[in-house]
């Protein structure tokens, strides 16, 4: 019978060439993979109004139970089929993780995230047991993350890693049809999706790298939804009359100082720099007021047990900053703010603005644009500060704090690391709260960096489409999140 559901076209930055969920972890991949794959544990964003937090709910696993501190058993949902018709079994789950955990595999990033997993055992066809190396409070979070999206063993083995990346098969709401890298990827509705029949017949992601072109395509109706609208273009989009702007808060942007650098080694200087930044001005001017100021390195979504709403947002106090600067050992040495030319929305603009603010308190700062900025090592003489962003999902301080800050630019990290390791293996909630608050205290004191704001991401949506973005670059087109009104 005829499919009366409308098709949907989404204009995105770019459509890359590989959709193996173990590899396709870039911001530009997530909107697409999320609609083809599912995880054992799913995230339900609908509980939070602004969709910045989620609840963990059953996904491909119907239920799970803790066997002991290090073991969890998952019962798989029966009657789930991959797009190619094969039923989902425990073997697929085991394969999914084994392929990543194999030290010889290419899944370096994914393996790093899932390194806590020791073993996967298929108990029977629909039961798997996951054993961790140590007690892990965040195992479920990790299983809900994109790296853990389940792939079909038989098919994967038959086409191999690169073949799978080209023609992915999952259990998700949309079934891969065709990929034209750098142009588009076509998906069609998976009508036997276990959460219900999708509300759109076809889903196409079109690559439109130029902002103007992306907006034009939206205005023309060539696409229904676009992502990555720079804040300055919001008015232009709204004034088109045919579209609405949707926004959602994403991750924190922060500045990281290279404390190995003899100049930056002085904590007073770092504190002065932190105090000199007028974050609210950045938010108002560059983010159309839509960004928020964080309460230090915390996400509210950690939940009341871990999140401390009483922590202040980073203060702006240029006088105090000047004072601290005077007290510090800083003698006008050059301070370079290294940033990537395009990686972050407003990245360069913020860099220039911050440098300007630093100059205002008498710091000899300047911007260095370097598209190799992630590779700058601690002994690089140029690197004194750089911008970066943290992890918002998996939403747990074990990820957010440790993955972000136990990195190599912070010299006095030993205690911080110890705490982090403890936090990673402690199941007790109260204890974790203390550990992480302690870590944040440490961070605030030592000031190896500073949080700027929590950046929003803007989407343009044609009127008549009801759709909401999540606090993550995923774009969710599951049946419950997209509806058409006419």
């Amino acid at each position, binding site marked *: 019978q005829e499919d009366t559901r409308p098709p949907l076209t989404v204009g995105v930055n770019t459509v890359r060439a590989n959709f193996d969920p173990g590899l396709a972890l870039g911001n530009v991949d997530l909107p697409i993979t999320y609609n083809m794959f599912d995880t054992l544990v799913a995230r339900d964003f609908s509980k939070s109004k602004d969709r910045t937090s989620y609840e963990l709910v059953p996904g491909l696993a119907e239920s799970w139970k803790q066997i002991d501190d290090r073991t969890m058993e998952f019962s798989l949902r029966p009657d789930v089929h991959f797009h190619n018709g094969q039923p989902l079994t425990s073997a697929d789950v085991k394969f999914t993780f084994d392929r990543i955990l194999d030290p010889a595999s290419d899944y370096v*990033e994914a393996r790093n995230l899932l390194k806590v997993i020791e073993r996967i055992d298929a108990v029977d066809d629909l039961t798997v047991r996951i054993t961790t190396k140590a007690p892990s409070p965040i195992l479920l979070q990790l299983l809900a993350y994109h790296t853990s999206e389940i792939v079909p063993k038989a098919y994967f083995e038959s086409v191999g890693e690169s073949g799978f990346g080209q023609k992915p098969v999952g259990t998700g709401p949309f079934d891969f049809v065709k990929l034209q*890298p750098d142009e588009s990827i076509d998906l069609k509705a998976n009508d036997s999706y276990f959460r219900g029949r999708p509300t759109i017949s076809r889903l196409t992601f079109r690559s*439109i790298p*130029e902002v103007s072109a992306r907006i034009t395509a939206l205005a023309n109706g060539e696409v229904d939804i676009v992502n990555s609208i720079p804040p300055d273009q919001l008015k232009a989009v709204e004034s088109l009359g045919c579209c609405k702007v949707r926004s959602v808060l994403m991750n924190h942007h922060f500045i990281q100082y290279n404390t190995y650098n003899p100049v930056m080694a002085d904590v007073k200087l770092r504190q002065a720099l932190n105090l000199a930044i007028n974050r609210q001005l950045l938010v108002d001017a560059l983010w159309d007021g839509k960004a928020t100021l964080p309460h230090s390195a915390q996400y509210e979504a950690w939940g009341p047990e871990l999140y401390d709403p009483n922590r202040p947002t980073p203060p702006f106090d240029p006088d105090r900053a000047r004072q601290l600067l005077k007290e510090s050992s800083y003698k006008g040495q050059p301070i370079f703010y290294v940033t990537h030319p395009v990686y972050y929305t407003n990245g360069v603009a913020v860099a220039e603005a911050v440098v300007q603010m630093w100059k205002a308190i008498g710091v000899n700062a300047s911007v260095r644009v370097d598209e190799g900025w992630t590779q700058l090592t601690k002994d690089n003489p140029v690197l004194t500060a750089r911008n970066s962003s943290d992890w918002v999902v998996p939403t747990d301080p074990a990820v957010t704090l440790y993955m972000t800050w136990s990195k190599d630019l912070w010299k006095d990290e030993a205690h911080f690391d110890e705490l982090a390791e403890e936090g990673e293996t402690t199941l007790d909630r109260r204890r974790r709260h203390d550990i992480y608050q302690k870590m944040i205290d440490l961070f605030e004191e030592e000031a190896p960096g500073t949080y700027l704001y929590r950046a929003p991401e803007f989407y343009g949506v044609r009127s008549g489409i009801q759709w909401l973005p999540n606090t993550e670059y995923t774009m969710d087109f599951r049946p419950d999140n997209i509806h058409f009104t006419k």
Partner: protein
Amino acid sequence: MFFISRALRSALTLWAILTIVFFATRLTGDPTGFLMPPEMPEAQRIELRAKLGLNDDIATQYLRYGEALLRGDFGQSFFSKRPVVELFMERVPNTLLLTVPAFVLSVAIGLCGGLWAALRHNSLFDRSLTTATVVMQAIPNFVVGIATILIFSLSLRLLPSGGMGTWKHFILPVITLALATCANTAHLVRTCMLEVLAQDYMRYARSKGLSPAVVVLKHGLRNAILPVLTIMGLQFGGLVAGAVVTESVFAWPGAGRLVIDAVMKRDFALLQFGILVFSAAIIFANLLVDVAYGLLDPRIRER
């Protein structure tokens, strides 16, 4: 034989290009920064480097690459994990779809415009064309591209803003691409034609009582086209380079974007092969030009 020596020389040229690119990329870039998000710890990066074979010393890498080349293996992309040859073969037709019509259009416009301007030397048309050519060459491709999108797509809603698909999708990128080079061609045709017009054989042709069309087209253009031809080989190179930018503006899934991506992400194998393909294309275009030149200019044939 001419061709064998040409081919040998071209092969040598390509090898030189490849070698330079190989060393330049490896000495200055590290793709792992692009393979993982900035949030990843350093240890992972080193592991990844090892995995990609980037920790060996560069001579070893070069030998390994050379050996693979001899087996016809150009390597695979770090990112998509696919053989680069395959990646390119997917894209090259798209680029050709863009560059060939643009080339034809550009030559057609250039030829007619240049011819007309030369015939009406110092007329208003001639002067405007001369000015227009300089102006056209001065405006970057991407500005033209975005401007046409805003005009024809956003304001007039006549044409799609980008991507491939129907014939309508071709119009803007092809025009954008053609504009830059057609100005050049027109200018060149004009100059050459002016020179030819001053030749004795043109006057002689007229003294035979031939019609103006015969004089201009048969006696004039056939001679004027020769130097234009040589430049057209180079123009093709310019077009290919222009395609790199135009493809980005119009979201055209061509080989140019692949190479840009490769450059930006230090996808070595892809970059090397990409530059190889582009260079080979240009060398081939120039070879074609030489052949055409030989066919059109009897004076060359005997040499």
